[in-house]
Structure formats: C-alpha cells, structure tokens
C-alpha cells in the first residue's frame, strides 16, 4: 500500500521533469506554457502525496465517530488545504500568461519563442 505513495511521488517527479524539459526544448510558446502547468501539477501532486495515508480514511470527522480511531486513521488534511490554494494560483497565472501570448501574437504573427521572446536589447526600432 505504501507502494501507491511511492508511485505518486515518482509520478510527480515525472511531471516536473516533463515540464522542465518542455521549458527548455519546446519552441512553441503555448506548448511551453502547457509544460509549465505540468510543473505546477507535479508540485501539487507531491504535496497531496505527503498528506496521503495509505489505507486511511478521508479526514472528515462525522458526528458520533470515535475520535481516537479517527485520529489514528485519517490522512493529514493540512497539505490538502494548501494544494487547493496552489491549484487556483496556478490556473490564474496560466490565464495571465495566455492573455499576454494573445496580445503578443497580434504583433508577431507567430507562436515561436525564439521570434516572439528573443533578445530585445539591441533593437533600435519598435514597429507597431
């Protein structure tokens, strides 16, 4: 049963590595952003994996439950609360990034990172 927890940690590491790979090697900006959202998902999965207690129960204390039994069987709910916040933060950053991409696409007409987000420090003119 503890194998599930280990497998979850491996999955999260796999997601993070996929995301980092996409961040370096994928040129399309939307795919890059998708890859970056996988890093976020991997971190979330990892934190949920921390709270998970193999063979335990959902941490909801119903009335009439034996509290000692509950305390020794419930999984740890604090990480779950953190992940909720983190998921929403991730979605909102994703939305802002995509909005910026849409604005920049109108200017460049391409989604290639090496064109859209290239070095700008030597550019003299700025064409609208």
């Amino acid at each position: 049963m503890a194998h599930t927890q280990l497998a979850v940690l491996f999955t999260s590491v796999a997601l993070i590595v996929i995301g980092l790979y996409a961040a370096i090697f994928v040129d399309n900006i939307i795919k890059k952003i998708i890859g970056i959202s996988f890093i976020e998902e991997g971190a979330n999965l990892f934190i949920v994996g921390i709270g998970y207690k193999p063979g335990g129960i959902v941490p909801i204390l119903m009335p009439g439950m034996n509290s000692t039994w509950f305390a020794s069987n419930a999984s740890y709910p604090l990480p779950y609360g953190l992940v909720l916040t983190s998921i929403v933060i991730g979605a909102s950053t994703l939305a802002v990034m995509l909005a910026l991409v849409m604005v920049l696409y109108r200017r460049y007409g391409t989604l290639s990172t090496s064109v859209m987000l290239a070095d700008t420090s030597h550019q003299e003119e700025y064409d609208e």
Partner: protein
Amino acid sequence: MNELIPLMVIVPMMAALLISAFSKFDKVIKVFAFVVALCLPIIPLLSNYGVHYFGGYAPIVDNITNILYHPAITYSFNFPQQIFIGMVGILTFLVVFIYLTKYTKVSGPYLFLLFMGTAAVTALILTDDIFHMFVFFEILALAQVGIVAASSIDYSYEMALKYMILGSIGSPIMLLGIGFLLAMTGTVNITDIVAIIRDGIISTSSPMFFLSLALIFFGWLYASGLPPFHTIKSGIYSKAEPHGAALLQSFTVISMISIVIIMFRIYSVLPIFEVLIVLFSVLAMILGVSLALTQTDFRRMIGFLAVGELGFIGLGIGLGTQYAITAGLFQALNEIVITALLFIGFGAIVNATNEVDTRKLGGLLASHPKVGIMLLIGGLAMAGVPPLSGFQSKLMLVQASLSCGYPELSILTIMVSIATFVVFVKTFYSMFLRPKPHDLEVVDKDVPRAMIFAMVVLLIIIVALGIFPDVVTNGISNFVGGMLH
C-alpha cells in the same frame, strides 16, 4: 494596539479592490488613493510591537509533551518590520503621488497593482507562516508582471511574459521545497519548524532537508533576482515606468530579505546554507556591476546596479554573525531608498528628453540642474561615499567580513563599490556634463513637481541615515540578536 498589525496588509488590499471596482469615479478615486497612500507609512509607526494571531487562535500547549503549537497564521511585528514597512509605505505614497499628478485620468487597474504589490510585500515581511509566504510571493509576482505590462514602454509585454514564465518555474519549485519541509515537520509555522529542528526531532543531516533548502533557495533566487535571474530582473526594471520601477525594486529587496530571514531561521544549522548565499551574492555583485558598466540604456544600467547591490545584502546575511546581518539589513534599507531615488531621477530625464540612450544625451546639467545634483548625490550614496547612508552600511559590511576572517570578501566589496562609482560617474558624465549633441531635442522642459518632491524626500532620508545610522542599526541589531539565540 496589536489590532493595527493586520491592518497594514488589509488597508492597501481593500484600497486596491475598491479602487479597481469604482475606477469610473475619477475624482473620488484620486482623493481616496491619496488618502490611503498617506495612511500607509503612518500605520506601522503607530502600531505596537507584538504578534497577531489570525482568527484569534492563540498558541496551544500540549499538556502531555509540553510542546507549543501555533494553529493560526501568525504575523509578528518588530522593529525591522516597522522600519521596512514604513519605508515601503513612504515609497508607495511618493509613487502614487507622482502617478496621480502625472496623469489627469487615472487608471484603476494600475493603482490596483501598486497597492496590491505593497500589500503583498507587507504580508511577506510580517508573516510567520511558510505557506502564507508562498501565496503572497505569487501575488507579488503577478502584481510585478502587471506593473511592467501596464507601462507604455517598448517591449514591456515581452519582458512581462518572460518574467512570468521564469516565475512559473521558480514558484512551483519553491512550493515543492515547502512540501518537503512540510513532509518532515508536519507544520507550516516557522516558529514551530524552528523549535522542531532545535529539539532534534528531525534529522538535519537527511538528504530531504538539504533538498528542501535547495528548492526553496531556487525560489528565493527568483524572488530576489540574483543570478541566473539577474538579466530578467534588470530587464523588468528597465521596462516599467520609472516610478513603477522605483516601487518594483523595493518589492524585490523586501521579498529578498523576508524570505532569506525565514530561510536563515530554519537552515542556519547547516553550514552549507551560508556558503550558498555567499556564492550567489558574490556572483550577483560581479555580474551585475560588470554588466552595468557595458550598458548604454541608463535604465538598464540602474537595473543591473540594483541587482549588484543586492549582492551586498546577501553577503551580510551569508556571513551569519550578528554584526554582519545587521549590516546586510541596513544595506537593504539604504538600497530601497537610494535606488528609488535613482529610478525617479532618471525617470525625470526620460520624461524631459524621451531618450534612454546615454550616447545620444549630453549637456543636461544646464537644463536640469536640480535633478542633476540630486542624482549625483544619490549615485555617490550608492557607491558608498561618506557621509551618505550607503557608506555606513558598506563600511559595516567590510568590517564584518574582516572580523569573520574573509579579507577577500572585503576586497571584493570595496572593488564592487569602486566599480559602481565608475558606472555612475561614466553615466553622469555622458548625460549631464558632456557637451550637448546637436540632434538632442528636449521635448518637455520642466520636470514634474511631484518627482522633485519625491527626490527631495528620499534625499533627506539618505542624508539622515548617513549621519545617524544608530537610529536604525541599534534596533535591527537587537532583533538579529534575538533571532540568533
């Protein structure tokens, strides 16, 4: 009155939301923003030191094991917090004032971002909860992106997107580090984590503990703009409006010191922690200043200088003694003020000439003597010329590194100060002293009054801190002494 502690975060945040919601009513919003901005530096001055437990959940003592737990999000307010929040408040007030006088029609979203950023850094420096720190770290990153994207400077959208993509790599990594720490200690309250580590409940030599340091450290590198993030950090300074950049750098400095203090409290048992911080600070100093020497865009140059100066703060924290950390924090305070002065002053020049290339400028001392003189004093303060405030903190840093047995770091510190001086003199010469080129047209002759006012206020703070450093250093030193024991 500890009730004032949460208000330091709530007031700017509520103001941000209200301004954004009622941005149609132009006059009312202007007055409201001005009043709130005026309140921001006053609240920390009136408040007493102490802690605030959100929701009133006081710490619980476990009767069997006698261990203290903190169930609520805790804000702790002390002398350094007071001085830094007060300084950010003053800066926010000046920036909002410049913004309100510059534009007749104010933009609600922009003011929203300014106030939201202020609320986020205030929460960052007050908080005693590592996840709360992460949440406001994200909010701060979003606010910074917004401030950059809202400016009307060329390539600001590109720079904002780059900053955001790098940020969305940095922050999940930091979250992962927090996750490792949570997995080992089971809590997110820093005081509890420190107590657990001090009692030896978890093994500090386990690879997990080192890994959590590595991941949180990477997030800190992103937040503070040390290498490898020095290019993007200087980039966003140069693509934001000058007054926005003045606020952005204060956000950077404060997020840097608040996260590094948290890391110091948790990880100072590991000797490698100090090695890492000193390594990256030295790199930041060398790369920041040497790149600043080769820039021709003066906003970018100040950006790189600001990153280079961050290295001094890191150096002070990395040396790890009471005197060194005091010096580092004092340097942070000075840097906030000095860099803000430089950004606002150079922004006034951009305003007047519409030109950012130092090669095409010249002879501005004749048309803008006031701005020139104030910028000169600010630059001298940044380079560490007595009796200005930069001198005091840099002298303390040199002494601290000598007394720790690292004369190389002292030499490096002095060299970086000299190079900073060279950068500044070179730029000042080519902008103000050199004969005026024929093709330079000064578009708008007079500099806005609000900018002059802001510069004068910041200059007074610089000189006052330079002459009476004890006012600040004694209090910081006491706080650091309490933190180390």
